[in-house]
């Protein structure tokens, strides 16, 4: 032995550090937008290789040593599925993208009417089925470390492997949490994780091929020699068992479609459907190369190694026995990669399911309960934090489950068969999955019954007996069946005797599963929601436009914005609303609550919390509105002609609707403006008259009474002076506005610091309403931005906004939050107070001249402030807008970090 145990640990740690670094760099590249090769078909194909776990890496050789060529069926099934990608995978990936599916549980729950119960059932099946599989990976790492730790791995103490497994599980949890829960939207790619896994895919391929090449050319002496060796070895007679051969090929084909981790990389992490065409041949090729040397290694291992040594470890022990320490080390890293990449993806996929289908809905239901009892009506919660936390905890939970399973079974031999047992378990979702995407008639009851029946049979006939006699099922029950009914014996049900247990369970569970699914689907009648979803899934390639969902109803966009901000985060939600409003031809952040918009919003949120939860949340806002007559019509109208016509009509009516909406908005604004213009004359006369009257009165007094004492003259002329100043200010404002509006203003561009500008504005307004102290919340770190713009004009805007907050914020303890940030060359500053906000109908006119919402005695201004602000911002190349849904009055000022020289603009303005 040339590799010491310490060296092994050191190299493993270095390798783990490399993985972290790769994931980190990939994540950073992706954040900077330099995706490049990160989203190449090669990385996609390599990430699919998590199908090859440690079970493949070590186990395939052991399998081949025990039962010859049969191991190959585990790879032939996926090969057939991939070369036939045009049938199933293409549709799955398309549905996954168009419905923003987050997991296989989400897909099934979403297909059958966004049923949350179905999501829970699928999640449970997956967790129960996959946990032993994760345990198997931990065991394989522990065993392979054991090979290096002691001369005879079989006699290695029990503390050793368990400690190794614990460390590996903890490390993997850390990695998955760090890189798997960066962003809440599962549909956003986990570039870090995927890239690290692609690297691991290369490592395990290179490792296995290296060992294979060494065995074939180094030991046996060439391909022909190895074929001779095979013919003289213990596995020379190919005892193909027809049932197992066909059954296992089918099983592995089913597994690649239904394993949660495969679904995660294949469908959820897919961001370009052209990748599938490459993976269709590249992934089978990968599998081919992976299994090319399995038989040679097994044969040479059987020849070289002493009788009774574990064939599962031939990949390590054969090079070691030949004194190839370096090669054994590489093989160890390969096995380590296989185990870790599987565990990372599986725990990520399971955690998404557990969090989206169990934790979050449970929490929401709990909260709704409390709200209905009126205890905590207004808990402002950031749901994103909840979702991320629950996802992180779920990752920890899943890995802990795997570890405890490993600890309980203690590396017993029952683990060896667990790969196939897991496959059969997760395959129970196959009928509902395939039925769901190819058959309109599948219903929720059918899917539910099928899943439950299949899962129960799997537990009874395969999973529980796999622990051995008298662990869960008594020996008597296994021998004679429950209550002595021979037909219900777990391993030979309905009189089928003498069949391999895996095959037996696969056969009966899937047959009864499918029967229940089809039977109940045929008998039952689906809800409108289910029929809509079925049309959307089955006809995913036909539907160019989405059928409508929510009846146009009482929901206010602002309420939706509040919900969306909690789920997606303020920035993303605001951007999304702004974009949707723009598509409708409306300015601002509040689009009309059209069915299209709500549909899009719901799908966007489904990417974060799953379809069922998103649907429930939007449903809460709507309260009772459900599928409308139009929706039902959409289901009924299945003929192509109608669709074709209606598409043309729809395009036209969309256009008309958009124009009408614009006209309506403009009209509303014009009406409001006309009222204002009428008021303008009265107001301007009033504003001018009040100071004029007092000026005239006092000047008459002075004129009429020449003997007036000088101090009185001084006092009166002081008043006259003040009044003229007020007049001048008003006229200045008007002039200012007119200059700004005509774009003839000359900007004085200089360098300034945003923090100082805001500070100046706060200082300058200190004497406004000094009796009402205003609490300020600022973040100096974010404010520290150097800007090049007209700083005087900008601070004029800030002063106006801060003094408005001081004047109008009607909270008992006024507070003002100023949040600044710079993104993509634009600076955004939000001014958010805790008052009662501005009612929706007034939001569109506050930036108009002379618009005052409160009575003007309190205001003291002429209502020109915000109008001037807006004009200034336009001149600075920026914008000021009212930001709804912030729990108070909120204004967002945005402007470019560096203002371009104004020459071009002023020339342009002059030319107009």
């Amino acid at each position, binding site marked *: 032995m040339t590799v010491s145990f310490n060296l092994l640990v050191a190299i493993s740690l270095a390798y783990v550090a490399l993985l972290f670094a790769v994931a980190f760099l990939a994540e950073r590249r992706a954040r900077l937008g330099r995706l490049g090769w990160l989203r190449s078909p090669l990385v996609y194909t390599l990430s699919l290789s998590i199908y090859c776990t440690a079970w493949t890496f070590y186990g395939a050789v052991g399998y081949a040593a025990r039962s*010859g*060529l049969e191991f*190959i069926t585990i790879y*032939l099934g996926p*090969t*057939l*599925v*991939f*070369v*036939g*990608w*045009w*049938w199933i995978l*293409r549709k799955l*990936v*398309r549905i996954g993208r168009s419905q923003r599916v987050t997991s296989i549980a989400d897909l099934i729950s979403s297909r059958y009417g966004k049923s949350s119960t179905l999501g829970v059932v699928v999640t449970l099946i997956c967790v129960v089925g996959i946990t032993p599989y994760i345990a198997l990976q931990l065991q394989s790492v522990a065993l392979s470390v054991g090979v290096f730790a002691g001369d005879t791995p079989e006699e290695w103490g029990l503390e050793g492997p368990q400690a190794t497994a614990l460390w590996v599980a903890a490390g993997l949890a850390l990695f998955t949490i760090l890189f798997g829960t960066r962003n809440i939207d599962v549909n956003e790619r986990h570039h870090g994780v995927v890239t690290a896994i692609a690297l691991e895919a290369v490592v395990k391929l290179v490792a296995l091929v290296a060992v294979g090449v060494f065995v074939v050319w180094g030991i046996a002496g060439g391909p022909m020699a190895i*074929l*001779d060796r*095979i*013919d003289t*070895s213990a*596995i*020379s*007679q*190919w*005892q*193909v068992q*027809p049932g197992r*051969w*066909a059954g296992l*090929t089918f099983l592995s084909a089913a597994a690649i479609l239904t394993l949660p981790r495969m679904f995660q990389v294949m469908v959820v992490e897919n961001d370009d*459907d*052209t990748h*599938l*065409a*490459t993976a*269709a*041949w*590249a992934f*089978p*090729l990968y599998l*081919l190369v992976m299994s*090319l040397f399995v*038989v040679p290694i097994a044969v040479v291992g059987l020849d070289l190694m002493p009788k009774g040594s574990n064939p599962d470890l031939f990949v390590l022990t054969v090079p070691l026995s030949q004194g190839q320490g370096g090669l054994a080390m590489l093989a160890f890293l390969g096995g380590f990669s296989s185990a870790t990449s599987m565990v990372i993806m599986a725990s990520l996929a399971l955690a998404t399911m557990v969090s989206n289908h169990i934790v979050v809905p449970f929490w929401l239901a709990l909260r709704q309960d409390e709200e209905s009892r009126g205890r905590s009506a207004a808990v402002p919660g950031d749901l994103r934090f909840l979702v991320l936390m629950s996802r992180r905890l779920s990752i920890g939970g899943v890995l802990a489950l795997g570890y405890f399973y490993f600890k309980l079974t203690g590396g017993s031999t029952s683990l060896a068969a667990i790969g196939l047992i897991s496959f059969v378990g997760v395959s129970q979702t196959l009928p509902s999955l395939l039925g769901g995407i190819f058959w309109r008639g599948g219903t929720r009851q059918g899917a539910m019954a099928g899943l439950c029946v299949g899962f129960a049979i799997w537990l009874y006939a395969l999973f529980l007996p796999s622990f051995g006699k008298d662990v869960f099922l008594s020996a008597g029950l296994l021998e004679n069946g429950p209550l002595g009914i021979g037909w219900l014996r777990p391993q030979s049900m309905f009189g089928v005797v003498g069949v391999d247990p895996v095959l037996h369970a696969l056969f009966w569970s899937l047959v009864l599963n499918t029967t229940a699914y089809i039977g109940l689907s045929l008998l039952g009648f689906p809800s409108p929601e289910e029929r809509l979803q079925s049309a959307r899934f089955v006809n995913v*390639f*036909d539907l*160019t436009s989405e059928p409508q969902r929510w009846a146009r109803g009482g929901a206010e966009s602002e309420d939706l914005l509040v919900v969306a901000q909690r789920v997606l985060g303020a920035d993303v939600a605001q951007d999304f609303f702004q974009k949707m409003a723009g598509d409708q031809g409306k300015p601002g952040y509040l689009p009309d609550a059209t069915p299209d918009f709500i549909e899009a919003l719901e799908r966007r949120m489904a990417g974060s919390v799953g379809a069922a939860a998103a649907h429930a949340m939007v449903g809460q806002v709507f309260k009772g509105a459900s599928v409308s007559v139009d929706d039902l019509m959409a289901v009924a109208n299945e*003929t*192509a002609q109608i669709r074709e016509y209606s598409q043309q009509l729809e395009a036209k009516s969309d256009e008309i609707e958009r124009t009408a909406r614009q006209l309506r908005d403009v009209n509303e604004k014009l009406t409001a403006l006309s009222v204002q213009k009428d008021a303008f004359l009265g107001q301007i006369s009033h504003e001018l008259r009040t100071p004029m009257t007092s000026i005239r009165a006092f000047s008459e007094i002075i004129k009429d009474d020449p003997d007036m004492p000088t101090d009185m003259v001084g006092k009166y002329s002081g008043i006259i002076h003040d009044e003229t100043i007020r007049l001048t200010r008003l006229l200045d404002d008007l002039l200012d506005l007119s200059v700004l509006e005509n774009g003839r203003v000359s900007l004085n561009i200089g360098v300034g610091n945003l923090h100082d500008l805001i500070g100046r504005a706060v200082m300058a307004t200190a004497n406004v309403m000094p009796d009402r102290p205003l609490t300020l919340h600022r973040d100096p770190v974010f404010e520290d931005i150097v800007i090049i713009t007209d700083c005087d004009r900008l601070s004029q805007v800030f002063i106006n906004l801060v003094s408005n907050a001081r004047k109008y914020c009607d909270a008992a303890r006024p507070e003002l939050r100023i949040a600044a940030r710079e993104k993509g060359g634009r600076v955004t500053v939000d001014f958010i107070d805790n008052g009662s906000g501005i009612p929706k109908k007034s939001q569109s006119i506050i930036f108009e001249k002379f618009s005052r919402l409160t009575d003007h005695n309190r205001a003291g201004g002429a209502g020109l402030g915000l109008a001037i602000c807006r004009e200034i911002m336009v001149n600075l190349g920026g914008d000021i807008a009212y930001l709804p849904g912030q729990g108070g009055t909120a204004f967002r000022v945005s402007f470019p970090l560096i203002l371009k020289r104004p020459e071009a603009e002023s020339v342009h303005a002059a030319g107009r």
Partner: protein
Amino acid sequence: MIRRRRRPVFVARASYRLRRRIDALRLLPFVGGFLVLLPVLWRIGQAEDAPPTARGTVYLFVVWAGLVLAAGILSRGLSDRTQTDDGSLQDD
């Protein structure tokens, strides 16, 4: 049920080729399945004299490589957006 889509009776040579290529691609998993399951028949035919593992290994890997090659050639340049209307490629 009257459900006719309006589509041309004769299509251009290029798209005709494309459709046949996709037909072949659809057929591929069935051909593969047949070839993969063929060893089961050997066994049934000559139970006493089953082919040795070495020959079986070579056979399976040749089939496998053939499938990879065929999938590579047939899938080249295809994506699920090659055409929007799936049905039009299915039956004509």
